[in-house]
């Protein structure tokens, strides 16, 4: 019980894990299962708070519990969107929350004024905006802006996934130290916690 409480605190970032405890997690099936379960439930809670479209709190809790016995040989979870990855998901989720009303309104040749004239840095924009395709029929998106937003998000996720893989491949070739280049690709928390 003490281990589970400590594990929960670790997942919630309320405690730091020493090496012995992390090793204990890796070597104890029950703790590994609980670890996966806590993360999945965390995902559910985050989705519930963000109001991500198409998610049902009850369904996701059920999925999380059903997933528990198979954390080490995970089942395929219901598909929620195509080829999500950490970097893309943040942009997509932010966009899904905030940019629905914007998607058909931004001109295609907008250029940011994010950098001051003197070369200094300014604050970052907080979301990604999908711009109206040049050749799309305006009526289509005007009739269904949510569809346009989803389509834009899917296109973007795929492209950014591919960019990230290629960035990591180059990083691998350069042999620079740090986080293993493909860890971010495998990182399973990618698809719901970036905002």
């Amino acid at each position, binding site marked *: 019980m003490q281990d589970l409480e400590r594990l929960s605190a670790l997942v919630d970032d309320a405690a730091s894990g020493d090496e012995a405890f992390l090793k204990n997690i890796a070597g104890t099936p029950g703790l590994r299962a609980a670890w996966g379960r806590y993360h999945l439930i965390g995902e559910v809670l985050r989705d519930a708070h963000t109001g991500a479209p198409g998610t049902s709190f009850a369904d996701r809790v059920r999925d999380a519990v059903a997933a528990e016995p198979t954390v080490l040989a995970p089942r395929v979870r219901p598909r929620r969107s195509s080829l999500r990855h950490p970097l893309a998901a943040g942009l997509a989720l932010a966009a899904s929350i905030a940019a629905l009303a914007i998607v058909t309104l931004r001109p295609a040749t907008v250029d940011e004024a994010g950098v001051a004239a003197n070369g200094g840095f300014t604050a970052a924009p907080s979301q990604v905006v999908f711009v109206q395709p040049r050749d799309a029929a305006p009526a289509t998106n005007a009739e269904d802006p949510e569809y346009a937003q989803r389509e834009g998000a899917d296109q973007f996720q795929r492209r950014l996934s591919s960019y990230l893989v290629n960035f990591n491949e*180059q990083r691998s070739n350069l*042999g620079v130290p740090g986080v293993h280049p493909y860890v971010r690709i495998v*990182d399973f928390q990618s698809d719901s916690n970036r905002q």
Partner: protein
Amino acid sequence: MALWAFAVAAAASEAQDFVNQMVEATKALNYDGLFVYQRDSQLNAMRIIHKAATGSDAESERLVSLSGPAREVVRDGAKVKCIFSDDKEVMVEKRQPRDFYALGLSEPVAKLADLYAFKTEGMERVAGRQTHLVGIIPRGADRYGYRLWIDADSKLLLKSAILSREGRVLEQVQFVQIEINGNIPDALLQAELEGTGFTWYTSETEPADARAQPGQEWDVRWLPSGFEMRNSQVQHLATSDGPVKHVVYSDGLAMVSVFVEKVMHKVHPFQGYSSLGAVNAFSRVADSYQVTVVGELPEPVVRHIATSVAFHGR
């Protein structure tokens, strides 16, 4: 005073030696280990299996998620295959020849020393093994710092952290168990996920000598000091309708990629910022081209590089 300066220089040189040995060991040894990856408040477990090149067999590697949806990355001499069971998709990227630009820390000591301070910070125990702790501290605010725990015996990297300028850990990887130089059966390097019934995306790459794109030329007009172009290529990504120009810049430690592609028919351009641990990305649309910069650099720096991309000529 001269003695103190000599001692500092010697410590820096020793730290760089450790890192160079680590880069070599990462490629040259067999290893099979479990590690945890932390970013923000997330903590995930993964397994890595690495087999060094032998004879005609190229170096190969398999990375597997141990928690959450099954995901795998399998690399060999010819390709990288990323398998996502949750999305039922497989992405295959042809690999660049290894070591084509393998500069790493083979950059001259003096050159890197202008950009980073290298320090040895004693010994620490990781995964039951003694490690040398090396700190790499950027001299400017325009790049991140690193802490590396390098196995005293094998020189493998057993723990690493990328740090913000304020010293906050952005990402951390830590082995909890590792077997070094054991026999790696080929079966361990085969993906468990076959990808049957999945959607496959395959991309190819061809070298490019210049930064020009058909019908358009562009320049990156601002980069942090010490960054130089390391690679330039045109890629035909399954996820893009047209060719994508990919130019890589590095200072010998940090790296940034600039992707430029023409906005095609019925494609939604995008603009904005996102981050993943220490990796930041910024996208913008300029002159009918989609510009995306991805780098292990602070967000304002990535954004500044993206906005400095200028198009000219046709």
